[in-house]
């Protein structure tokens, strides 16, 4: 009898630890970013200058950098993740070729981001440099665009594997009905499968956005790490930049006074909230979708 109660208690304690862990993370981030919140106020978020030497801190360059890299990556990744979802969900759901492709795509997510960053630095950067020289922008090689390309590859598996599952869940009577009316395969996909899975596929894109926002290492190695704001749109896309995650990775161990360190932690806090909210909305949509 005694062991039974101990075991049950232990299970409850372990689950409670998890809740405490999240609360602890939140409290730590808030407490440690207090000095910066107090001295910089809410204007921190749209301050345009980040100059630790002069003690001026503005998060705007990093917010823009994070949004820009993530959204460019998202735009590049969407055709691929949708194509994979449709191909493996509808055209070719079974068989060795389908399995092979599915496993290969899952391996894309398994490769550590540091390896993508290293490879990008030595292989992709020279290629991009030639490309940039051709289209007439300053050939940095490293920069927002290069990071977005690598990010796009890294986030495709997340949206794709969810998309495959959801497209396979489309009830076949719906599809058969459309075929019976004489619809072609393309028409079935466009007017039956796509409307049916729209919200779920959107959730997949949201989850991959969450990944892209928080991705650190590959971006840190490829983005060029400058905190200046670009003067033109072309410069902003092809020139070097910085994201919230990359500036934390680069400057955290160098931050030598309280407000500097605390401003970096406040960036982490913002990142935490944004990714949590995006993930939460994504998961909500999926739960709703699979329950219906």
């Amino acid at each position: 009898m005694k062991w039974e109660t101990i075991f049950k208690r232990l299970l409850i304690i372990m689950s409670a630890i998890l809740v405490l862990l999240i609360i602890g993370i939140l409290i730590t981030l808030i407490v440690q970013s207090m000095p910066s919140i107090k001295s910089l106020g809410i204007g921190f978020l749209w301050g345009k200058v980040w100059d630790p030497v002069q003690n001026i801190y503005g998060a705007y360059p990093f917010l823009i950098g994070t949004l820009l890299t993530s959204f460019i990556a998202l735009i590049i990744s969407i055709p691929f993740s949708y194509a994979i979802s449709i191909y493996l969900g509808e055209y070719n759901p079974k068989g060795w070729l389908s399995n092979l492709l599915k496993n290969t795509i899952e391996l894309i997510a398994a490769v550590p981001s540091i390896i993508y960053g290293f490879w990008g630095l030595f292989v992709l950067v020279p290629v991009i440099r030639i490309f940039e020289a051709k289209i007439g922008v300053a050939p940095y090689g490293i920069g927002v665009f290069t990071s977005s390309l690598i990010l796009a590859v890294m986030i495709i598996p997340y949206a794709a594997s969810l998309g495959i599952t959801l497209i396979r869940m489309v009830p076949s009577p719906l599809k058969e009905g459309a075929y019976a009316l004489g619809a072609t395969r393309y028409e079935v996909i466009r007017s039956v499968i796509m409307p049916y899975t729209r919200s779920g596929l959107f959730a997949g894109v949201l989850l991959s956005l969450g990944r892209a926002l928080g991705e650190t290492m590959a971006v840190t190695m490829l983005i060029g790490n400058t905190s200046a704001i670009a003067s033109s749109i072309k410069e902003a896309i092809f020139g070097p930049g910085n994201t919230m995650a990359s500036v934390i990775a680069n400057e955290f161990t160098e931050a030598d006074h309280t407000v500097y360190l605390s401003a970096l932690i406040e960036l982490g806090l913002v990142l935490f909230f944004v990714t949590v909210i995006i993930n939460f909305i994504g998961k909500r949509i999926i739960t709703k979708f699979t329950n219906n």
Partner: protein
Amino acid sequence: MDARIGIRNTKSMLFKGVIVFFAFLITLPLIIVLLYIIKQGVTEVNWHFLTHVPAPVGETGGGISNALMGSLLIVLMSSIVAIPVGIMTGIYLSENPHTKLAYYSGLCVDILQGVPSIVVGIVVYFWIVKPLGTFSAISGSIALAIMMLPIVIRSTEQTLRLLPPSLKEAALSLGVPYHRVILKVIVPCGFAGILSGIMLSIARIIGETAPLLFTAFGNPYLSYSVTKPMETLPHLIYTYATSPYDDWHNLAWGASFILLMFVLLLNITTKLITRKWNIQL
């Protein structure tokens, strides 16, 4: 009329062509990265490389034994922390799906899964590095353990949920105490699923760099002390890849090769296990 059908059919064929093209095109980056790492890395790897610490700039030779040992030790320590907590939480979530605690703790697993790894690094820095006053292997392990938890929990929970309830009922009706039912009947039945979750989580954390930047930090020498900074494979790749020296780049290619092979091997083994036991993760 016929012409219209022809157009529609052509459109359908064209669409399929585009889909197939995009679906297979994405394997290209993976293949290129793999081949490149293998080409650059495989020539570096030999016995000397695996058993020596990195050579200073200007000297040839040297290896990555410090990072290999460090990664091994840190992953081992993370597993010791994360696996029991993860499995027990997983059991609780699958056994009591409708309690308030299960709801909140399930929510926290979802949140934890989405937390960027760099944020985990910051938090562990304040929890362990600052009080101890030095970067340490133990703090790196805690950071990685936090990253491991959601994968272990979810795989345990989902595997145990798939087991037929009659299994538990049969054991309970024989008068077996609850903890013995769970530990001797339920967990062994879901063993393959739990194991593959653990392997996946190890494959995930062994390549994590961001949380280690402010915790385990890195160390150019071989160290076994858990309260001192320790080198790990991904951190070694990061430092040496961003250095200006060719010798160090070669060292980093060799380390990347080993890391990549390890991660891929773990993933493929997990795939084979899940296929053999027919587990859905």
